[in-house]
């Protein structure tokens, strides 16, 4: 039996719940990680990943295999993250405190490298679309074309997002990376 994502999605469209559970098992960890990197909050990332997985089921009969299933699911997850960020009231990072990670020992692990923690904090302060572009490119290892497709923009617009995002990061991390203020 064909066990590809697209074949499973075809079965989900016909109401096959087992195929749906299979897809969820396969893609949930990656989508949860992606949502967490974009949102910077474990609890919100869980809500977004759950919503994205439910959409796999509810939207399956309307799904058209125009793009790879993984690309479609990533787009759904990123859009849900951006929507949530848009709706959520702005909270100053100092007021919000540290990002709570419920995993045992995750706090100690994060503290072990101040430098990388500072980078992740700076990434969280970026505007939503710049952050999404950086996460998709540097964390998911996507090409600019793939990331542009997921964000629903052109490759040149994505490149602009990346350049601006990195400029903002360099500015925020100038003490850390030893750069002079322009």
């Amino acid at each position: 039996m064909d066990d590809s994502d697209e074949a499973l999605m075809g079965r989900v469209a016909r109401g096959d719940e087992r195929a749906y559970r299979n897809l969820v098992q396969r893609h949930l960890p990656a989508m949860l990680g992606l949502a967490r990197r974009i949102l910077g909050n474990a609890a919100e990332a869980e809500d977004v990943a759950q919503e994205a997985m439910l959409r796999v089921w509810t939207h399956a009969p309307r799904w058209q295999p125009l793009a790879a299933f993984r690309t479609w699911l990533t787009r759904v997850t990123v859009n849900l993250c951006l929507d949530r960020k848009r709706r959520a009231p702005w909270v100053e990072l100092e007021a919000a405190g540290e990002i709570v990670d419920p995993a045992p020992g995750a706090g100690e692990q994060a503290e072990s490298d101040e430098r990388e923690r500072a980078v992740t904090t700076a990434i969280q302060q970026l505007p939503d679309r710049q952050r999404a572009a950086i996460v998709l490119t540097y964390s998911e290892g996507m090409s600019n074309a793939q990331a542009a497709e997921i964000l629903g923009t052109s490759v040149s617009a994505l490149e602009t997002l990346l350049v601006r995002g990195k400029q903002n990061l360099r500015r925020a991390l100038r003490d850390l990376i030893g750069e002079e203020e322009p």
Partner: protein
Amino acid sequence: MKSQEFDALLMRALKRQNKADEASVERVLARLSGPVPRQQLPFWRLPAVLLDWQFAPAWPRVAALGACAVIGFAIGLSGVDRRIDRTDTAVITSGGIGSIVFEPEPLTGAQP
């Protein structure tokens, strides 16, 4: 810091966040383990739903059929097929029955 070094730093920092959190995955899986919601049917499948002769449970189909019947009656009663200048008068026929019976033959002029 050079561009490549900065890119590498970004990748390392994001990779650190990449590690899957088992407990978090389990929590979401537990939330998804309940009954699944209704799937959204595309519009082009609706005629197929109406033509699917399965009688149990068929409330949506009965409701759709009833709605079609009500719309049909409403259109029939509203008289949308009548001419706009005659909507206020009840007209049974425009010509009397006599015009049919006593009309002379067009060629011969013979009366019936």
